[in-house]
């Protein structure tokens, strides 16, 4: 398999799984952040947003320490018979989930927050239980937010570099993603290959944003 194809597959697998996990984890977390009056809301909200401003290498560095044989995550995974996660795809996936967390939680949170609480109360008085309300009211009303969250999560994972390099390394077919491959090609002075890859990623990112803008516009029109 060509290195490019292998890197594309690893990237898609990583971004796809990260997005899926983040949607599942992010929905309850975003719901809690949007609705709670707990005093923990502010510190937890800040913690969720941290990967947005933290240099990826800082996150990667601590994750690497944590995942190593002496770190708490490493000890946990060893005890579970999973070995250590450093320089494996699973480790990379774990890091990506943390790294892209705010990009999924924030759109979901603002989507959930914009739902009128009276509408949910009305659904409750119409005999809908909590899970029923979530699937029959919250999810349909947050569809634009869900799409935005999924696209952001996916695109942001495709674009990560620092965390990948620290945590995943550069193993062909396992942890080498497109952004790392581009760096390799650049280092090897294979400029025309690097050019193609860079242009491809540029077009992909622009396309994603285009889709998001278009969906946002459509949602705004539907709202009127």
């Amino acid at each position, binding site marked *: 398999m060509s290195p490019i194809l292998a890197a594309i597959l690893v990237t898609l697998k990583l971004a796809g799984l990260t997005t899926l996990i983040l949607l599942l984890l992010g929905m309850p977390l975003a719901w809690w952040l949007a609705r709670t009056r707990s005093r923990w809301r502010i510190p937890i909200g800040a913690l969720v947003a941290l990967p947005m401003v933290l240099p990826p290498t800082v996150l990667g560095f601590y994750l690497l320490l944590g995942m190593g044989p002496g770190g708490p995550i490493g000890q946990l995974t060893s005890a579970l018979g999973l070995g250590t996660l450093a320089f494996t795809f699973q480790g990379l996936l774990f890091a990506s989930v943390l790294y892209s967390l705010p990009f999924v939680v924030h759109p979901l949170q603002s989507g959930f927050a914009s739902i009128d609480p*009276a509408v949910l*109360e*009305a659904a*409750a008085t*119409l*005999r*809908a239980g909590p899970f029923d309300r979530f699937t029959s009211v919250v999810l349909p009303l947050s569809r634009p937010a869900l799409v935005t969250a999924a696209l952001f999560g996916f695109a942001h994972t495709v674009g990560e570099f620092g965390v990948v390099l620290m945590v995943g390394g550069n193993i062909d077919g396992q942890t080498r993603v497109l952004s790392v491959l581009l760096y390799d090609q650049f280092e090897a002075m294979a400029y025309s290959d690097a050019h193609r890859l860079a242009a491809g990623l540029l077009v992909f990112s622009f396309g994603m944003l285009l889709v998001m803008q278009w969906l946002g516009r459509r949602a705004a029109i539907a709202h009127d």
Partner: protein
Amino acid sequence: MTETRQDIELRLQLRRKAFTLDVALSLPAQGVTVVFGPSGSGKSTLLRAIAGLEPAARGRVRIGAAVWQDGDKYLPPHRRAVGVVFQHAALLPHLSVHENLRYGWRRSGAAAGAVPEWIDKLALGTLLARSPATLSGGERQRVALARALVCRPRWLLLDEPLSALDVERRSEILPYLETIRQQADIPMLYVTHAVEEAARLADHLVLLEAGKVFVAGPALEVLNRPDLPWALRDDAAAVLEATVAAHDGHGMLLLDTPAGSLHVHGAAHPTGTIVRLRVQARDVSVAMSAHADTSVLNIIPAVLESLSPLPNGQLQLRLRAGEALLLARVSHQSAVRLQLREGLPLWAQIKAVALLV
């Protein structure tokens, strides 16, 4: 549906920033109970606690034979068989009108005919495919009413359902509320801060103030109590129940009232209809003799029961007319000139009467 009487017994406590709700009430299983009070008196909170939307409320809620809340027992709102109509309708925005009606109906297991029945009674046939965002405020409230009723709730709870509407829309909805009251045989709890709505709809009246029950009882009795806050307001009024005795063919009705016969301008209600009248104190003046040379049509004999000064320097008079009590307002100078005193027989001149039904 009348195998058990669905009266409500309430004992609720809830601490809020503005007030502490602390009520013990029993609400009759028939007719309209209006909970009346200024904003911040806890009336909406009371309604929400019955529906199970105030989990912090402590106490006991029994409805008919079912205990919904007692001590640690707390039934969540989706397991309480009430219908709630919210101030801003709160229709599900992603569903059509028809889907909104079917949402609760499907989950409540009510009979198949309930949805078409209420579509018909509340005249929603032409709105079914519309999205809630395209409805007027009045249409939204009609849909919200139908949506609550198709679930066949044991009580219908209405939380200031007209307060978000302008006057015109209000008079559009009120006849439908009358329809529900007459045809649904379902007790209603109606929360409002508007005296007119309370006077028009209430069979039973609860007045809340700062989270406590100030007074509760049959509506006419409570409405005409002179010691209550609204008696001091500019729109203080007496509320009478009357029977339509005759029509004159020119838009005037002759009404039998406990105060005597009154001529009232109003729609052609059939003879025998029971209606409510609201006679505002500022529309009643007094005279020492029955003038024939006046444009005032309704002049009835009365006895002055008491005089109380108002903050603006006027005097408010309580007049006993037949079986009824009327309020009148006069200036201080007039009171002196006419030598008004308790027990004085006089004539009440009623300039205007508002027909409420």
